[in-house]
């Protein structure tokens, strides 16, 4: 055996019961403190995670919002940070909105104006670096929109076939000139009132 082993073992310390009890009491108090803190931390983590998931969900739902929809403001608010990664995001959104409105609304002044505003906004956002496909779609929709805003008579004069409207129509009156036209849209139905001279005609469509 090493010369020190036997002699140094006398330096061993045995913790007596009183010391052990005192130490374990302090240890239990510390353990209890940390066990209490733990659920709060987990709750905070769970809340933060839930808020992040909710935010992502709202942004995702807002993606399909159209002007006038409740989430449209959120959609446009997130375009600025997203434009860092996708410079054409605003152009793409205005164009998609214009395309969807052009498909869903019947021919008429209000639809055209709403689509026209979006097309104008999209045009303002177009740069030489913009995606070529987006620019093509924009041009195509501009042409289609321009066609639908001309009167049937103007189109006949231009040699185009007469226009047909979707959905049931109560009354239609063709005239060669239109002094004024107003269209109101309500619950997906539009009513166009055209005045020619002293004659007023009302057309309903979907």
């Amino acid at each position, binding site marked *: 055996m*090493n*010369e*020190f*082993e*036997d*002699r*140094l*073992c*006398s*330096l*061993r*310390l*045995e*913790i007596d019961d009183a*010391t*052990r009890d005192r*130490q*374990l009491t*302090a*240890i*239990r108090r*510390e*353990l209890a403190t*940390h*066990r209490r803190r*733990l659920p709060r931390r987990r709750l905070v983590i769970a809340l933060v995670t839930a808020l992040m998931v909710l935010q992502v969900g709202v942004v995702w739902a807002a993606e399909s919002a159209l002007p006038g929809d409740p989430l449209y403001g959120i959609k446009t608010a997130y375009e600025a940070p997203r434009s860092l990664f996708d410079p054409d995001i605003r152009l793409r959104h205005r164009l998609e909105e214009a395309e969807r409105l052009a498909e869903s609304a019947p021919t008429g002044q209000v639809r055209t104006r709403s689509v026209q505003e979006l097309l104008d906004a999209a045009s303002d956002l177009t740069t030489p670096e913009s995606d070529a496909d987006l620019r093509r779609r924009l041009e195509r929709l501009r042409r289609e929109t321009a066609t639908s805003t001309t009167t049937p008579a103007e189109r006949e004069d231009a040699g185009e076939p007469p226009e047909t409207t979707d959905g049931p129509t109560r009354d239609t009156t063709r005239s060669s000139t239109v002094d004024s036209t107003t269209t109101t849209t309500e619950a997906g139905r539009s009513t166009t009132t055209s005045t020619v001279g002293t004659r007023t005609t009302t057309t309903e469509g979907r």
Partner: protein
Amino acid sequence: MDGVRERSDEAFAAVHRVVASDLASFANGMLRDRHAAEDAVQQAFLELARSAGRFRGDGRALIAWLYRTVRCRCLDEVRRRRRHPEVPVTVLPEPVDDHPGFDPDLAEALGRLSPKDRELIVLRYVVGLDGEEMAQVTGRTRGAVYAALDRAEDRLRKLMTEVTP
């Protein structure tokens, strides 16, 4: 180990029963002060209670961690005593005439060793750790530990000739 990570009272009590006296012996060998040694052990267990949830390792790793924590506290105390020298306290683990093995000359010589030499001697001959365990506690390789232990033993023998009347 799961019980320790979950901060179970029973798990901590079990670990304390197994290792607290060895830790106290180590600290006592370093500080030659029973109360300071017991304090160092308690602080190590309180630190474990605070960080138990993050502990990754088995039982051996846990014990090595406890020794390292006690060691840090002892070295801090030794440094503090050097900055503020006071009359060194040699608290006998037990009354001399009741403890036949106690050697005051050896204890005195041990006290004169540097903290790094002293910790190796205490870990090896007071606590009874092997080379691998000492390496985990001190952060050295096993070979370095044995080489340093040899040097510490030589210095202790030399000091013994100085203190022995």
